[in-house]
């Protein structure tokens, strides 16, 4: 396949405003909570206030006397409703341990937020009052919140497993080579990093509404989900409703960042209760509830070692990971570390590689995929520890990267971990980022501030990243024990009036697929993007699909749309040739019309062909009516976007406050369909990485009580905390798909956290400070400075 560059004058590459936005901005778009169904019962889940306890009793009878309450059930009451446990689709090893996980706990609660009962009422107020009235007796058990403590099995959370270790997963192609590389190394460096837990905080919390159809045993389920198709299959298996009786619709969905890439207890409960009560069931998550009942991200302790020769060329990478699964395995919980497992060598030409991960259960909310899922963690580790290598070798941050980059001419590049990187030009992105950030002037200012002992010190941090996205080649998923494929489906049909209808299996929740898919189709068909309708996120309309996550939608789903479009053109060409009485090979398709080569007056516009295909009055023998084609595209490889970010911080050395002074991002996601959407993804992505570096942490006390249960305590940064980002891009097409696209949804998040922390460490390097835990709160930075200065922290 050859990659296509955006053609000048074509639709691809234009900065079109998003089709989706008017409805979202005017409130016309309907989210789950906006759906008003007469007769619906509102569900409230009674959740455990303690992290680990045996359930002695659950008495729902007090709820029944609350006006408006219609029914209330304990976990035991509903045990018979389940055909299977809540699903984990990624048993990463044959002996992986996974506890039975029912939608409501029956004997034990394993995290604060674990559901123990559900109350149904005619209003959400009555349901909440009823929930408050339910009486639960707990026999508290010691809580496990520390990963080393978890691994020690001092307290075993799931008795039936006999251990807190879920699995150990190894990727060491050549142990002897690893040992030899470290034995022979001129330099070795070691980094120990904590990836704190993060709360995804989509602007719309979760919600589900199930409407039972009165006569035929079917259900329509609306959910704020990223994965209507996967959800349908999994709920059929969990609740025991035939797949043919479930229609899942994701209406307008307000973001997910991976947190809605799951099959949740409330979705299963709503379906089971709709079956049991024969009434619509509605559950809407509150913001505080979302801090406990929705999966959390990260939660890893990383140890990374580099071996290098005397010039600082890395000869081996060795990584040991301890990963926090939380209390249960959700849909892809155990797979998250694996999505990073191959990437700890980053953008560097590393011949020898070793990775192992031990994953443990704790008494905290389950973890799962959160924007980047494994890849931000991997990037953080390598981009932090390479700074130590630079210092050991005595070269600067840019030079150590240049010495180790995989060179442009080495692509496609086979990594020691076993991947084949499609394309890249890493040094070019670094050069551009350094140029845009004004590095020379910054270094001069930094020197002046150091010289004068300014209380505000300047720091400059670089992060060069790559990632794998476009999940995923199905055969690769098979080798990783994932239980589904990675293809995506699309159907393109021309309607009688020449308008175009696209059905996609992706499920956008903020990404702008309606706009981007319209542009792909419009560009190929020569119609306007406004003439293209994109249907999605409803399993009755788009029966095939594997949904939206892992920066997969464009490079898998968008490519499927392009392939289906080309198939439509091929069929249209046969009809046009027949009607023009000319051989197909003598026709060319340009500007939305089939035209005879050399005789432009013999031409037939696509719209006319569409109408002929519809009437079917005069089609070639044997050709079926209508212009419609589908594609089920299974990508031959992942795609590998990359880039370099440069972050400049000011550190107030008296208070420890870190302020972002500027942020420059040069990203390469291959060919860009709509640069405006690319920049939006980059801006949001950077902000989420900055948030991890400076602001956000899901805090638990030693008893497993969550402390960050409102947005007053869990600090999601806003525009006032951030500078205007400088963004630019290079374009290195992916050779593995016909659009040359790679994906951009997670890149910003993957590149940004290490850039920020590297900048802080750069500012404080004269004090001998070379590491800073995340989030770099003012107090944490102040304490580091105080310790470095050998001062007793005064006061107390």
């Amino acid at each position: 396949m050859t990659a296509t560059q955006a053609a000048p004058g074509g639709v691809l590459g234009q900065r079109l405003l998003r089709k989706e936005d008017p409805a979202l901005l005017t409130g016309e778009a309907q989210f789950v909570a906006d759906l008003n169904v007469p007769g619906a019962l509102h569900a409230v889940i009674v959740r455990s206030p303690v992290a680990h306890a045996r359930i002695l009793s659950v008495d729902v009878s007090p709820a029944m006397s609350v006006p408006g309450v219609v029914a209330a059930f304990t976990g035991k009451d509903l045990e018979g409703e389940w055909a299977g446990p809540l699903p984990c689709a990624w048993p990463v090893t044959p002996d992986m341990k996974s506890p039975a996980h029912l939608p409501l706990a029956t004997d034990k609660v394993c995290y604060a937020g674990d559901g123990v009962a559900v109350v149904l009422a005619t209003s959400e107020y009555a349901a909440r009052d009823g929930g408050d009235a339910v009486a639960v007796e707990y026999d508290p058990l010691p809580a496990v919140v520390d990963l080393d403590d978890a691994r020690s099995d001092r307290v075993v959370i799931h008795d039936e497993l006999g251990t807190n270790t879920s699995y150990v997963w190894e990727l060491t192609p050549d142990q002897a080579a690893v040992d030899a590389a470290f034995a022979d190394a001129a330099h070795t460096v070691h980094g120990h990093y904590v990836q704190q837990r993060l709360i995804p905080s989509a602007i719309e919390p979760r919600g589900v509404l199930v409407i039972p159809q009165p006569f035929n045993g079917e259900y329509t389920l609306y959910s704020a989900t990223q994965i209507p198709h996967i959800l349908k299959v999994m709920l059929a298996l969990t609740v025991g409703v035939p797949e043919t009786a479930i229609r899942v619709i994701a209406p307008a969905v307000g973001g997910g960042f991976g947190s809605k890439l799951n099959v949740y207890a409330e979705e299963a409960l709503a379906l089971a209760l709709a079956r049991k009560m024969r009434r619509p069931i509605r559950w809407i998550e509150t913001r505080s509830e979302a801090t406990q009942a929705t999966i959390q991200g990260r939660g890893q302790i990383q140890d990374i070692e580099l071996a290098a020769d005397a010039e600082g060329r890395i000869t081996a990478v060795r990584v040991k990971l301890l990963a926090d699964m939380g209390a249960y395995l959700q849909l892809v919980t155990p797979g998250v570390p694996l999505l990073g497992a191959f990437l700890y060598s980053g953008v560097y030409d590393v011949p020898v590689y070793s990775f192992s991960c031990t994953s443990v259960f704790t008494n905290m909310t389950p973890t799962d995929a959160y924007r980047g899922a494994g890849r931000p963690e991997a990037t953080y580790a390598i981009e932090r520890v390479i700074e130590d290598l630079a210092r050991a070798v005595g070269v600067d941050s840019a030079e150590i990267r240049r010495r180790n980059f995989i060179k442009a001419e080495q692509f496609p590049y086979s990594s020691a971990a076993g991947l084949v990187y499609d394309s890249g030009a890493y040094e070019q992105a670094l050069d551009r980022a350094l140029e845009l950030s004004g590095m020379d002037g910054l270094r001069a200012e930094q020197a002046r501030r150091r010289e004068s002992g300014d209380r505000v010190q300047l720091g400059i941090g670089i992060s060069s990243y790559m990632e794998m996205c476009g999940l995923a080649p199905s055969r690769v998923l098979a080798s990783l024990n994932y239980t589904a494929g990675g293809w995506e489906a699309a159907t393109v049909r021309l309607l009688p009036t020449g308008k175009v209808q696209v059905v996609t299996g992706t499920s956008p929740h903020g990404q702008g697929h309606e706009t981007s898919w319209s542009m792909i189709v419009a560009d190929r068909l020569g119609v306007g993007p406004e003439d293209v309708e994109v249907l999605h996120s409803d399993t009755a309309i788009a029966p095939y699909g594997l949904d939206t996550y892992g920066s997969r939608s464009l490079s898998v789903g968008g490519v499927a749309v392009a392939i289906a479009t080309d198939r439509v053109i091929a069929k249209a060409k046969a009809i046009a040739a027949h009607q023009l009485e000319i051989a197909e090979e003598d026709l060319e398709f340009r500007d939305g019309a089939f035209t005879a080569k050399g005789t432009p007056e013999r031409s037939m516009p696509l719209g006319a062909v569409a109408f002929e295909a519809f009437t079917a009055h005069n089609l070639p023998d044997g050709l079926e009516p209508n212009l419609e084609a589908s594609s089920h595209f299974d990508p031959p490889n992942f795609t590998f976007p990359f880039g370099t970010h440069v972050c400049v911080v000011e550190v107030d050395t008296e208070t420890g406050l870190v302020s972002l002074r500027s942020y420059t991002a040069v990203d390469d996601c291959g060919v860009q369909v709509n640069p405006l959407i690319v920049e939006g993804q980059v801006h949001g992505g950077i902000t989420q990485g900055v948030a991890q570096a400076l602001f956000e942490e899901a805090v638990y006390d030693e008893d497993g009580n969550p402390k960050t249960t409102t947005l007053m305590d869990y600090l999601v940064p806003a525009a006032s905390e951030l500078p205007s980002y400088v963004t630019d891009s290079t374009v290195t097409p992916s050779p593995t798909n016909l659009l040359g696209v790679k994906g951009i949804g997670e890149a910003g998040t993957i590149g940004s956290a290490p850039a920020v922390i590297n900048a802080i460490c750069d500012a404080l390097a004269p004090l001998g400070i070379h590491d800073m835990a995340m989030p770099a709160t003012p107090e944490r930075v102040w304490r580091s400075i105080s310790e470095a200065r050998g001062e007793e922290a005064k006061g107390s």
Partner: protein
Amino acid sequence: MIPASFDYVRASTADEAVQRLSEAGEDAKLLAGGHSLLPLMRLRMATPSLLVDIGGMRDLSYVKDGGDSLAIGALTRHGELARNELARREAPLLAHVAGQVGDPQVRHRGTIGGSIAHGDPASDLPAACLALGASFVTASPRGEQTRSADEFFTGFLETALAPDEMLVEIRVPKSAGATWSFQKFNRRAQDWAIVGVALARNGSTRIGLVNMGATPLRATAAEDALAGGASPAEASSRAGDGLAPPSDLSASAEYRRHLARVLVRRALEEAVAG
């Protein structure tokens, strides 16, 4: 928002409001801008049986020249106070602080009376009132009463207000000639201060502290040192003396004491320079 159930009445005069409070007992609450009370009700940390809505009393929204002092109606919203010309001229510290509370939405709804009556040590305006030597006029079935800011804040989220008493006016001595500084330290612009310092220098120096104890309070040790002739550096080193600031997710008590010292010094430097 799913609060517990409550009754709701609107009052159109202060007398009517305190009458309602008096009838309902301790479980009744006044509702003004709602920016302190409603978040607590949302989490069911506050479950008042009756809300007496005084938000419609626009006649209690004003800034008037009261001779030696400014008279500010209790229902004056933060945004209105921040933009008011008279306040900006005669009580520039207070007008500035009003413009730093929360975010534009909070400033559009929140009222100065609500902020003071809530008595939150993390709020900015009470500290400014302490620094400015403000006094508070209240109404109750027993008539009108005036208390100084220094005697108003009695405990954590507790004030001298009786359950049937309503704050109606804030009086602030005019301070057009004074120098001042407000230092608000936080991680996000919209948040409460981790520590804040409101400082007014008009002959003597008064320093109000935000989030340095159970109540809005003054840095008396630092004030005394200044009165005794100490330099800004010496005086600020005593900014945390005798105080028991909270330890929470934002900051430890130790770090808050450190911040108080740094911020008081910066405030003094700015006020002297100004």
